[in-house]
Protein backbone atom coordinates (compact mmCIF):
# COMPACT_ATOMS: atom_id res chain seq x y z
CA UNK A 1 0.00 0.00 0.00
CA UNK A 2 1.19 3.51 -0.76
CA UNK A 3 2.53 5.52 2.12
CA UNK A 4 0.48 8.08 3.94
CA UNK A 5 2.14 11.48 3.61
CA UNK A 6 1.93 13.78 6.61
CA UNK A 7 3.42 17.23 7.06
CA UNK A 8 4.04 18.75 10.45
CA UNK A 9 3.76 22.50 10.51
CA UNK A 10 3.22 25.39 12.88
CA UNK A 11 3.77 28.82 11.39
CA UNK A 12 5.66 30.08 14.40
CA UNK A 13 9.17 28.80 14.97
CA UNK A 14 10.32 26.94 18.03
CA UNK A 15 7.04 25.32 19.01
CA UNK A 16 8.27 21.77 18.42
CA UNK A 17 7.82 20.77 14.77
CA UNK A 18 11.13 18.98 14.52
CA UNK A 19 10.84 17.33 17.92
CA UNK A 20 7.36 16.13 17.04
CA UNK A 21 8.43 14.85 13.61
CA UNK A 22 11.35 12.94 15.12
CA UNK A 23 9.33 11.46 17.95
CA UNK A 24 6.27 10.49 15.93
CA UNK A 25 8.54 8.92 13.30
CA UNK A 26 10.39 6.87 15.89
CA UNK A 27 7.14 5.90 17.61
CA UNK A 28 5.68 4.69 14.29
CA UNK A 29 8.86 2.73 13.60
CA UNK A 30 8.59 1.16 17.04
CA UNK A 31 5.07 0.07 16.10
CA UNK A 32 6.63 -1.88 13.22
CA UNK A 33 5.92 0.69 10.52
CA UNK A 34 8.26 1.71 7.71
CA UNK A 35 8.82 5.45 8.00
CA UNK A 36 10.70 7.97 5.89
CA UNK A 37 11.02 11.39 7.46
CA UNK A 38 12.05 14.33 5.32
CA UNK A 39 13.57 17.53 6.67
CA UNK A 40 12.33 20.26 4.35
CA UNK A 41 13.90 23.08 6.35
CA UNK A 42 16.64 23.72 3.82
CA UNK A 43 19.39 25.94 5.19
CA UNK A 44 18.33 25.40 8.81
CA UNK A 45 18.32 21.66 9.13
CA UNK A 46 17.67 20.15 12.55
CA UNK A 47 15.88 16.87 12.20
CA UNK A 48 19.17 15.01 11.71
CA UNK A 49 20.45 16.37 15.02
CA UNK A 50 17.32 15.48 16.96
CA UNK A 51 17.43 11.96 15.53
CA UNK A 52 21.17 11.72 16.24
CA UNK A 53 21.99 11.02 12.58
CA UNK A 54 23.97 14.18 11.91
CA UNK A 55 27.31 12.53 11.26
CA UNK A 56 25.90 10.04 8.79
CA UNK A 57 24.82 12.55 6.17
CA UNK A 58 26.42 12.10 2.77
CA UNK A 59 23.73 13.27 0.38
CA UNK A 60 20.73 15.47 1.11
CA UNK A 61 17.33 16.48 -0.27
CA UNK A 62 18.74 19.04 -2.69
CA UNK A 63 21.27 16.51 -4.03
CA UNK A 64 18.37 14.21 -4.86
CA UNK A 65 16.34 16.91 -6.53
CA UNK A 66 19.26 18.24 -8.53
CA UNK A 67 20.12 14.73 -9.64
CA UNK A 68 23.48 14.29 -7.94
CA UNK A 69 22.37 11.07 -6.30
CA UNK A 70 19.52 8.59 -6.22
CA UNK A 71 16.88 8.89 -3.50
CA UNK A 72 18.07 5.63 -1.95
CA UNK A 73 21.52 7.13 -1.44
CA UNK A 74 20.15 10.09 0.48
CA UNK A 75 17.96 7.95 2.75
CA UNK A 76 19.86 7.47 5.98
CA UNK A 77 18.87 4.24 7.70
CA UNK A 78 18.49 4.63 11.44
CA UNK A 79 20.23 1.58 12.85
CA UNK A 80 18.45 1.79 16.19
CA UNK A 81 14.93 1.62 14.76
CA UNK A 82 14.07 -0.93 12.11
CA UNK A 83 12.33 0.70 9.15
CA UNK A 84 13.16 4.33 9.93
CA UNK A 85 14.87 6.48 7.30
CA UNK A 86 15.78 10.16 7.17
CA UNK A 87 16.22 12.34 4.12
CA UNK A 88 18.12 15.33 5.51
CA UNK A 89 17.85 18.91 4.29
CA UNK A 90 20.79 20.71 2.69
CA UNK A 91 22.45 23.09 5.06
CA UNK A 92 24.25 25.26 2.54
CA UNK A 93 21.31 26.16 0.31
CA UNK A 94 17.99 27.93 0.81
CA UNK A 95 14.30 27.21 0.28
CA UNK A 96 14.35 28.27 -3.37
CA UNK A 97 16.54 25.25 -4.19
CA UNK A 98 13.41 23.11 -4.47
CA UNK A 99 9.83 23.59 -5.64
CA UNK A 100 6.49 22.16 -4.48
CA UNK A 101 6.50 19.97 -7.58
CA UNK A 102 9.91 18.53 -6.70
CA UNK A 103 8.53 17.51 -3.31
CA UNK A 104 5.49 15.86 -4.87
CA UNK A 105 7.65 13.89 -7.30
CA UNK A 106 10.09 12.85 -4.62
CA UNK A 107 7.33 11.57 -2.37
CA UNK A 108 5.70 9.74 -5.26
CA UNK A 109 8.96 7.95 -5.97
CA UNK A 110 9.32 6.50 -2.48
CA UNK A 111 5.66 6.06 -1.72
CA UNK A 112 5.37 2.43 -2.66
CA UNK A 113 8.32 1.39 -0.50
CA UNK A 114 7.22 2.77 2.83
CA UNK A 115 4.17 3.10 5.08
CA UNK A 116 4.61 6.69 6.19
CA UNK A 117 6.31 9.80 4.89
CA UNK A 118 6.61 12.49 7.55
CA UNK A 119 7.71 15.93 6.42
CA UNK A 120 9.14 18.43 8.87
CA UNK A 121 8.09 21.88 7.66
CA UNK A 122 10.09 25.07 8.18
CA UNK A 123 8.56 27.95 10.13
CA UNK A 124 6.81 30.66 8.19
CA UNK A 125 4.22 30.65 5.40
CA UNK A 126 6.52 31.23 2.45
CA UNK A 127 8.16 29.01 -0.13
CA UNK A 128 9.55 26.47 2.33
CA UNK A 129 6.14 25.94 3.88
CA UNK A 130 4.52 25.61 0.46
CA UNK A 131 7.16 23.00 -0.47
CA UNK A 132 6.45 21.06 2.70
CA UNK A 133 2.68 20.91 2.36
CA UNK A 134 2.55 20.30 -1.41
CA UNK A 135 2.75 16.48 -1.22
CA UNK A 136 0.86 16.14 2.09
CA UNK A 137 -2.38 14.23 2.44
CA UNK A 138 -2.77 15.35 5.99
CA UNK A 139 -1.21 18.18 7.94
CA UNK A 140 -0.63 18.13 11.66
CA UNK A 141 -0.46 21.63 13.05
CA UNK A 142 1.52 21.96 16.21
CA UNK A 143 1.14 24.85 18.63
CA UNK A 144 2.03 25.87 22.17
CA UNK A 145 -0.59 27.14 24.57
CA UNK A 146 0.46 30.75 24.14
CA UNK A 147 -1.30 33.54 22.30
CA UNK A 148 1.24 34.15 19.55
CA UNK A 149 1.75 30.48 18.67
CA UNK A 150 -2.02 30.01 18.54
CA UNK A 151 -2.43 33.04 16.30
CA UNK A 152 0.12 31.63 13.85
CA UNK A 153 -1.48 28.19 14.00
CA UNK A 154 -4.78 29.83 13.08
CA UNK A 155 -3.17 31.42 10.04
CA UNK A 156 -1.63 28.10 8.98
CA UNK A 157 -4.95 26.30 9.37
CA UNK A 158 -6.56 28.98 7.20
CA UNK A 159 -3.96 28.44 4.46
CA UNK A 160 -4.36 24.68 4.72
CA UNK A 161 -8.11 25.09 4.27
CA UNK A 162 -7.73 27.29 1.22
CA UNK A 163 -5.20 24.85 -0.29
CA UNK A 164 -7.71 22.07 0.37
CA UNK A 165 -5.25 20.07 2.42
CA UNK A 166 -7.59 20.07 5.36
CA UNK A 167 -8.93 19.38 7.79
CA UNK A 168 -5.76 19.72 9.78
CA UNK A 169 -5.36 18.01 13.13
CA UNK A 170 -3.79 19.75 16.09
CA UNK A 171 -1.02 18.89 18.51
CA UNK A 172 -0.77 21.08 21.59
CA UNK A 173 2.83 20.93 22.73
CA UNK A 174 4.45 21.97 26.01
CA UNK A 175 1.30 22.25 28.06
CA UNK A 176 2.27 23.05 31.62
CA UNK A 177 -0.42 21.97 34.10
CA UNK A 178 1.21 23.88 36.95
CA UNK A 179 1.01 27.14 35.01
CA UNK A 180 -2.55 26.42 33.97
CA UNK A 181 -3.45 25.86 37.59
CA UNK A 182 -2.08 29.27 38.40
CA UNK A 183 -4.04 30.73 35.47
CA UNK A 184 -0.84 31.73 33.68
CA UNK A 185 -1.26 29.63 30.56
CA UNK A 186 -4.00 29.04 28.03
CA UNK A 187 -5.75 25.75 28.61
CA UNK A 188 -6.08 23.15 25.87
CA UNK A 189 -9.75 24.07 25.83
CA UNK A 190 -8.96 27.73 25.16
CA UNK A 191 -6.74 26.76 22.27
CA UNK A 192 -9.26 24.36 20.75
CA UNK A 193 -12.07 26.79 21.17
CA UNK A 194 -10.25 29.36 19.07
CA UNK A 195 -8.79 27.05 16.44
CA UNK A 196 -11.87 24.86 16.01
CA UNK A 197 -10.03 21.81 14.66
CA UNK A 198 -9.69 18.21 15.76
CA UNK A 199 -7.08 17.48 18.40
CA UNK A 200 -4.71 14.56 17.87
CA UNK A 201 -2.64 14.92 21.01
CA UNK A 202 -1.50 16.99 23.95
CA UNK A 203 2.17 16.85 24.89
CA UNK A 204 2.92 18.07 28.40
CA UNK A 205 5.98 20.16 29.13
CA UNK A 206 8.78 17.76 30.00
CA UNK A 207 12.44 18.47 30.68
CA UNK A 208 13.48 15.16 29.26
CA UNK A 209 12.56 16.42 25.77
CA UNK A 210 15.35 18.95 25.82
CA UNK A 211 17.82 16.50 27.29
CA UNK A 212 17.01 13.86 24.71
CA UNK A 213 17.24 16.39 21.87
CA UNK A 214 20.74 17.31 22.95
CA UNK A 215 21.91 13.72 22.94
CA UNK A 216 20.11 12.83 19.72
CA UNK A 217 17.85 10.20 21.27
CA UNK A 218 14.17 11.07 20.78
CA UNK A 219 12.25 11.22 24.04
CA UNK A 220 9.77 8.65 22.80
CA UNK A 221 12.41 6.00 23.52
CA UNK A 222 12.26 6.82 27.23
CA UNK A 223 9.60 4.56 28.63
CA UNK A 224 8.95 6.77 31.61
CA UNK A 225 8.82 10.19 29.95
CA UNK A 226 5.30 11.64 29.88
CA UNK A 227 6.06 13.58 26.70
CA UNK A 228 7.32 10.35 25.17
CA UNK A 229 4.06 8.65 26.11
CA UNK A 230 2.11 11.50 24.53
CA UNK A 231 4.05 11.10 21.26
CA UNK A 232 3.49 7.34 21.34
CA UNK A 233 -0.22 8.03 21.71
CA UNK A 234 -0.19 10.39 18.72
CA UNK A 235 1.52 7.72 16.61
CA UNK A 236 -1.11 5.23 17.75
CA UNK A 237 -3.90 7.61 16.77
CA UNK A 238 -2.33 8.11 13.34
CA UNK A 239 -2.47 4.34 12.97
CA UNK A 240 -6.18 4.60 13.60
CA UNK A 241 -6.10 3.18 17.11
CA UNK A 242 -8.70 4.55 19.46
CA UNK A 243 -6.64 6.02 22.26
CA UNK A 244 -8.68 8.28 24.49
CA UNK A 245 -7.61 11.90 24.74
CA UNK A 246 -7.46 13.81 27.91
CA UNK A 247 -11.06 14.60 28.66
CA UNK A 248 -11.71 18.19 27.74
CA UNK A 249 -15.36 18.09 28.61
CA UNK A 250 -14.90 18.97 32.22
CA UNK A 251 -13.48 22.32 33.05
CA UNK A 252 -11.86 21.17 36.25
CA UNK A 253 -11.20 17.77 34.84
CA UNK A 254 -8.29 18.85 32.75
CA UNK A 255 -5.97 19.60 35.64
CA UNK A 256 -7.09 16.51 37.32
CA UNK A 257 -6.49 14.30 34.33
CA UNK A 258 -3.12 15.79 33.60
CA UNK A 259 -2.00 15.48 37.16
CA UNK A 260 -2.98 11.86 36.87
CA UNK A 261 -0.75 11.63 33.85
CA UNK A 262 2.05 12.97 35.97
CA UNK A 263 1.39 10.54 38.75
CA UNK A 264 1.01 7.43 36.69
CA UNK A 265 3.18 8.27 33.73
CA UNK A 266 0.52 7.66 31.12
CA UNK A 267 -2.38 9.45 29.56
Amino acid at each position, binding site marked *: MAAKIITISSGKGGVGKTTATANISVALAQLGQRVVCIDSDIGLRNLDVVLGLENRIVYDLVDVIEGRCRIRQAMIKDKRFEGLFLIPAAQTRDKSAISPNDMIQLCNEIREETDWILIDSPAGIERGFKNAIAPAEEILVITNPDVSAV*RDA*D*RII*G*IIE*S*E*EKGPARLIINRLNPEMIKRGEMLTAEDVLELLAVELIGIVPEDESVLISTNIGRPVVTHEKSIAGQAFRNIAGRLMGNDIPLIDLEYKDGIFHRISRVFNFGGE
Partner: protein
Amino acid sequence: MNKDKKIISFPIKGFKEGLLITLSDEDWDQVQFQLLSQIEEKTKFFSGAKVAVEIGERVLHAAEMAGLRDELSDRGVKLFAVLSNSQVTDVNAESLGLKTRKSVLRENTSGFGPAVLDGKAAVLLQKTIRSGTSIKFAGNVIVDGDVNPGAEIFSTGSIFIWGKLRGSVHAGMEGSESETVCAMELDPINLRIANILLKDNKLIRKLKRKPVRITIDNGKLTINYWDNKK
Protein backbone atom coordinates in the same frame (compact mmCIF):
# COMPACT_ATOMS: atom_id res chain seq x y z
CA MET B 1 3.73 32.76 -19.57
CA ASN B 2 2.95 32.78 -23.26
CA LYS B 3 4.85 30.27 -25.30
CA ASP B 4 1.96 29.37 -27.49
CA LYS B 5 0.98 31.96 -30.05
CA LYS B 6 -2.20 30.26 -31.08
CA ILE B 7 -5.17 31.94 -29.48
CA ILE B 8 -8.13 29.77 -28.77
CA SER B 9 -11.41 31.58 -28.29
CA PHE B 10 -13.52 30.55 -25.38
CA PRO B 11 -17.24 30.29 -26.15
CA ILE B 12 -19.28 33.31 -25.09
CA LYS B 13 -23.00 33.40 -24.46
CA GLY B 14 -25.18 36.30 -23.49
CA PHE B 15 -27.60 35.91 -20.60
CA LYS B 16 -29.72 38.17 -18.49
CA GLU B 17 -27.00 39.55 -16.26
CA GLY B 18 -24.23 39.81 -18.82
CA LEU B 19 -21.83 37.57 -20.72
CA LEU B 20 -21.06 33.98 -19.83
CA ILE B 21 -17.63 32.76 -20.91
CA THR B 22 -16.87 29.05 -20.63
CA LEU B 23 -13.20 28.47 -19.88
CA SER B 24 -11.23 25.33 -20.66
CA ASP B 25 -9.49 23.29 -17.98
CA GLU B 26 -5.88 23.81 -19.01
CA ASP B 27 -3.24 25.40 -16.82
CA TRP B 28 -4.80 28.45 -15.19
CA ASP B 29 -2.08 30.91 -16.24
CA GLN B 30 -2.57 29.80 -19.82
CA VAL B 31 -6.36 30.08 -19.60
CA GLN B 32 -6.17 33.52 -18.08
CA PHE B 33 -3.72 34.63 -20.75
CA GLN B 34 -5.97 33.36 -23.52
CA LEU B 35 -9.02 35.00 -22.06
CA LEU B 36 -7.28 38.35 -21.75
CA SER B 37 -5.98 38.09 -25.32
CA GLN B 38 -9.48 37.31 -26.50
CA ILE B 39 -10.78 40.41 -24.75
CA GLU B 40 -7.97 42.59 -26.03
CA GLU B 41 -8.84 41.56 -29.58
CA LYS B 42 -12.34 42.94 -29.24
CA THR B 43 -11.93 45.78 -26.82
CA LYS B 44 -15.04 47.55 -28.05
CA PHE B 45 -17.28 44.55 -27.67
CA PHE B 46 -16.11 43.87 -24.15
CA SER B 47 -15.84 47.42 -22.92
CA GLY B 48 -18.08 47.89 -19.90
CA ALA B 49 -19.29 44.27 -20.03
CA LYS B 50 -20.34 42.29 -16.99
CA VAL B 51 -18.86 38.85 -17.23
CA ALA B 52 -19.42 35.50 -15.54
CA VAL B 53 -16.90 32.72 -16.08
CA GLU B 54 -17.81 29.03 -16.11
CA ILE B 55 -14.88 26.96 -14.84
CA GLY B 56 -16.39 23.53 -14.29
CA GLU B 57 -14.54 21.31 -11.85
CA ARG B 58 -11.54 23.59 -11.53
CA VAL B 59 -10.68 24.72 -8.02
CA LEU B 60 -9.79 28.38 -8.03
CA HIS B 61 -8.20 30.06 -5.04
CA ALA B 62 -9.22 33.49 -3.89
CA ALA B 63 -5.91 35.00 -4.98
CA GLU B 64 -6.26 33.62 -8.52
CA MET B 65 -9.82 34.85 -8.72
CA ALA B 66 -8.89 38.28 -7.45
CA GLY B 67 -6.04 38.34 -9.98
CA LEU B 68 -8.46 37.61 -12.83
CA ARG B 69 -10.92 40.17 -11.53
CA ASP B 70 -8.22 42.86 -11.42
CA GLU B 71 -6.85 41.99 -14.86
CA LEU B 72 -10.37 42.17 -16.29
CA SER B 73 -11.13 45.41 -14.59
CA ASP B 74 -7.93 46.89 -16.06
CA ARG B 75 -9.53 46.14 -19.43
CA GLY B 76 -12.87 47.68 -18.52
CA VAL B 77 -14.59 44.34 -17.89
CA LYS B 78 -16.36 43.58 -14.63
CA LEU B 79 -16.16 40.03 -13.33
CA PHE B 80 -19.34 39.46 -11.32
CA ALA B 81 -19.65 35.70 -11.04
CA VAL B 82 -17.59 32.53 -11.06
CA LEU B 83 -19.63 29.44 -11.86
CA SER B 84 -18.01 26.22 -10.73
CA ASN B 85 -18.87 22.78 -9.46
CA SER B 86 -16.46 23.09 -6.56
CA GLN B 87 -17.74 24.15 -3.18
CA VAL B 88 -14.33 25.49 -2.27
CA THR B 89 -14.30 27.72 -5.31
CA ASP B 90 -17.79 28.89 -4.39
CA VAL B 91 -16.69 29.85 -0.91
CA ASN B 92 -13.64 31.65 -2.31
CA ALA B 93 -15.82 33.49 -4.81
CA GLU B 94 -18.21 34.53 -2.06
CA SER B 95 -15.36 35.81 0.04
CA LEU B 96 -14.48 38.15 -2.83
CA GLY B 97 -18.09 39.22 -3.18
CA LEU B 98 -18.53 37.35 -6.47
CA LYS B 99 -21.65 35.46 -7.33
CA THR B 100 -21.61 31.69 -7.71
CA ARG B 101 -23.70 29.21 -9.63
CA LYS B 102 -26.00 28.87 -6.66
CA SER B 103 -26.72 32.56 -6.31
CA VAL B 104 -27.02 33.16 -10.05
CA LEU B 105 -29.35 30.18 -10.47
CA ARG B 106 -31.39 31.24 -7.53
CA GLU B 107 -31.92 34.67 -9.02
CA ASN B 108 -32.78 33.21 -12.40
CA THR B 109 -35.08 30.44 -11.35
CA SER B 110 -36.92 31.61 -8.28
CA GLY B 111 -40.10 33.44 -9.00
CA PHE B 112 -39.15 36.20 -6.59
CA GLY B 113 -36.73 37.97 -8.91
CA PRO B 114 -33.84 39.95 -7.58
CA ALA B 115 -34.46 42.27 -4.67
CA VAL B 116 -38.16 42.95 -4.79
CA LEU B 117 -37.90 43.96 -1.16
CA ASP B 118 -35.86 47.02 -0.35
CA GLY B 119 -33.23 44.89 1.38
CA LYS B 120 -29.52 45.11 0.72
CA ALA B 121 -27.22 42.48 -0.69
CA ALA B 122 -25.33 40.37 1.78
CA VAL B 123 -22.68 37.71 1.57
CA LEU B 124 -22.90 34.68 3.82
CA LEU B 125 -19.67 33.09 5.04
CA GLN B 126 -20.17 29.75 6.74
CA LYS B 127 -16.75 29.13 8.24
CA THR B 128 -14.27 30.34 10.79
CA ILE B 129 -12.60 33.48 9.48
CA ARG B 130 -8.99 32.85 10.43
CA SER B 131 -5.96 35.01 11.01
CA GLY B 132 -4.61 36.47 7.77
CA THR B 133 -7.97 36.45 5.99
CA SER B 134 -9.19 39.79 4.71
CA ILE B 135 -12.73 40.10 3.43
CA LYS B 136 -13.93 43.17 1.60
CA PHE B 137 -17.50 43.40 0.45
CA ALA B 138 -19.72 46.15 -0.89
CA GLY B 139 -22.86 45.33 1.08
CA ASN B 140 -23.60 43.43 4.27
CA VAL B 141 -21.58 40.54 5.60
CA ILE B 142 -22.98 37.64 7.59
CA VAL B 143 -20.56 35.22 9.20
CA ASP B 144 -21.77 31.90 10.53
CA GLY B 145 -18.65 31.18 12.57
CA ASP B 146 -15.99 33.01 14.56
CA VAL B 147 -13.85 35.89 13.37
CA ASN B 148 -10.43 35.12 14.85
CA PRO B 149 -7.71 37.56 15.89
CA GLY B 150 -5.72 38.64 12.85
CA ALA B 151 -8.70 38.35 10.49
CA GLU B 152 -10.42 41.44 9.12
CA ILE B 153 -13.74 42.21 7.50
CA PHE B 154 -14.47 45.44 5.67
CA SER B 155 -17.93 46.20 4.38
CA THR B 156 -19.80 49.19 3.12
CA GLY B 157 -22.85 47.83 4.98
CA SER B 158 -23.43 46.06 8.28
CA ILE B 159 -21.63 43.04 9.70
CA PHE B 160 -23.40 40.23 11.52
CA ILE B 161 -21.36 37.58 13.24
CA TRP B 162 -23.06 34.45 14.53
CA GLY B 163 -20.02 33.61 16.53
CA LYS B 164 -17.26 35.36 18.42
CA LEU B 165 -15.78 38.56 17.13
CA ARG B 166 -12.10 38.57 18.09
CA GLY B 167 -10.58 40.06 14.96
CA SER B 168 -11.06 43.42 13.25
CA VAL B 169 -14.20 44.68 11.54
CA HIS B 170 -15.05 47.90 9.79
CA ALA B 171 -18.69 48.40 8.87
CA GLY B 172 -19.94 51.32 6.81
CA MET B 173 -16.47 51.87 5.45
CA GLU B 174 -17.69 54.41 2.96
CA GLY B 175 -18.96 56.55 5.77
CA SER B 176 -22.51 55.31 6.33
CA GLU B 177 -23.31 55.82 10.01
CA SER B 178 -26.54 53.83 9.91
CA GLU B 179 -24.73 50.48 9.78
CA THR B 180 -24.52 48.03 12.68
CA VAL B 181 -22.18 45.37 13.90
CA CYS B 182 -23.65 42.40 15.75
CA ALA B 183 -21.78 39.54 17.37
CA MET B 184 -22.55 36.70 19.74
CA GLU B 185 -19.51 37.61 21.77
CA LEU B 186 -17.45 40.74 21.55
CA ASP B 187 -13.71 40.87 22.06
CA PRO B 188 -12.41 42.66 18.98
CA ILE B 189 -8.90 43.80 18.16
CA ASN B 190 -10.43 46.69 16.31
CA LEU B 191 -14.03 47.66 15.64
CA ARG B 192 -15.10 50.56 13.49
CA ILE B 193 -18.38 51.81 12.07
CA ALA B 194 -18.05 54.60 9.48
CA ASN B 195 -15.14 56.56 10.90
CA ILE B 196 -15.72 55.91 14.57
CA LEU B 197 -13.48 53.52 16.43
CA LEU B 198 -14.61 51.53 19.45
CA LYS B 199 -12.24 52.39 22.24
CA ASP B 200 -13.97 51.48 25.44
CA ASN B 201 -12.17 48.28 26.41
CA LYS B 202 -13.44 48.42 29.97
CA LEU B 203 -16.98 48.41 28.73
CA ILE B 204 -16.26 45.43 26.49
CA ARG B 205 -14.92 43.48 29.43
CA LYS B 206 -18.13 44.15 31.33
CA LEU B 207 -20.27 42.60 28.62
CA LYS B 208 -19.68 39.09 29.92
CA ARG B 209 -19.80 37.27 26.63
CA LYS B 210 -23.33 38.17 25.76
CA PRO B 211 -24.57 38.87 22.23
CA VAL B 212 -24.29 42.54 21.41
CA ARG B 213 -25.38 45.01 18.80
CA ILE B 214 -23.32 48.10 18.11
CA THR B 215 -24.71 51.17 16.42
CA ILE B 216 -23.89 54.85 16.14
CA ASP B 217 -25.99 57.06 18.37
CA ASN B 218 -25.44 60.78 18.28
CA GLY B 219 -22.03 60.35 16.75
CA LYS B 220 -20.93 57.80 19.38
CA LEU B 221 -20.61 54.05 19.20
CA THR B 222 -23.22 52.47 21.44
CA ILE B 223 -23.25 48.87 22.60
CA ASN B 224 -26.55 47.21 23.43
CA TYR B 225 -27.27 43.61 24.26
CA TRP B 226 -28.58 41.91 21.16
CA ASP B 227 -31.74 40.62 22.76
CA ASN B 228 -34.44 43.08 21.89
CA LYS B 229 -35.21 44.91 18.75
CA LYS B 230 -34.64 48.58 18.57
